[in-house]
């Protein structure tokens, strides 16, 4: 079972970064591969078990379900329900930790999944680079996370 981990340091206080990431329906506002996103059945985006249905820039449609959300731990987990990409049993975890030295944030994004034999590396690269690392770089440059006076 491939396991993909990406982590980085964001130069913003952890509560401000968490305010962006805890919005399970917010990825279409920053992630370069996400075109549109909506929470099904009109549920709130922080209702555990809600489902986000979203389309990628290439037109493909995915559904993901929120499995856990903790404002105390600043962590969340979600799984893929439907996807045209052959990622099965996909569960992802996002967690933030404060960097007290400099009031910055540590952000880790991790996923596990199964795939058809022989495609493990290819899909691990897609998840790690196109989804996680690209999402981190996009969030890093959000105006609301820039240090005041910088």
């Amino acid at each position, binding site marked *: 079972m491939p396991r993909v*981990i*990406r*982590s*980085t*340091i964001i130069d913003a206080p952890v509560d401000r970064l968490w305010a962006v990431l805890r919005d399970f329906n917010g990825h279409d506002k920053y992630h370069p591969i996400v075109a549109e996103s909506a929470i099904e059945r009109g549920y709130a985006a922080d209702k555990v078990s809600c489902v986000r249905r979203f389309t990628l820039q290439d037109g493909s449609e995915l559904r993901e379900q929120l499995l856990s959300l903790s404002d105390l731990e600043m962590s969340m987990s979600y799984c893929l329900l439907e996807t045209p990409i052959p990622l099965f049993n996909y569960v992802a975890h996002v967690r933030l*930790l*404060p*960097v*007290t*030295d*400099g009031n*910055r944030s*540590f952000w*880790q994004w991790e996923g596990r999944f199964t795939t058809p034999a022989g495609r493990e590396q290819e899909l691990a690269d897609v998840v790690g680079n196109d989804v996680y*690392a690209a999402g*981190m770089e996009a969030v890093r440059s959000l105006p609301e996370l820039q240090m005041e006076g910088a």
Partner: protein
Amino acid sequence: MARVYVSSVINAPAAKVWARIRDFNGLPNWVPPVAESRIENGEPADKVGCVRAFSLRNGDRLREQLLGLSDFDMFCTYSILDSPMPLTSYVATVRLTPITDQERTFIEWSAEFDCTPDKEQELIDGIGTNVFMSGIDTLKRAFGG
């Protein structure tokens, strides 16, 4: 229960930083207030349960016991057995996590303990600044920033 939490970034791969941290007898090499250290009963420093007896530059003497050590998850947990500090039930953990985007290391050093309310803030500041952050600053310098 009081809690101290200090975290930072070291510009070196986690495996290299871990090689320094995992030596339970190595405090004099990287924590400035510590003058000398030895492991009691001639036990190896990575034997879980071993006790380090060490002295500070101000003459204080402490004994700490290794409760957990993981080369896989890169953490080290220990408790204070004897110290001149007015606290009890002290358990601390140093943990390293790789930062994948630039081969850096996220280091966390935390502790929980019991003490009387009037001593709490002084102990939190003293441990967090003089021990944890000063040790981390040594590592940052040793690994170039």
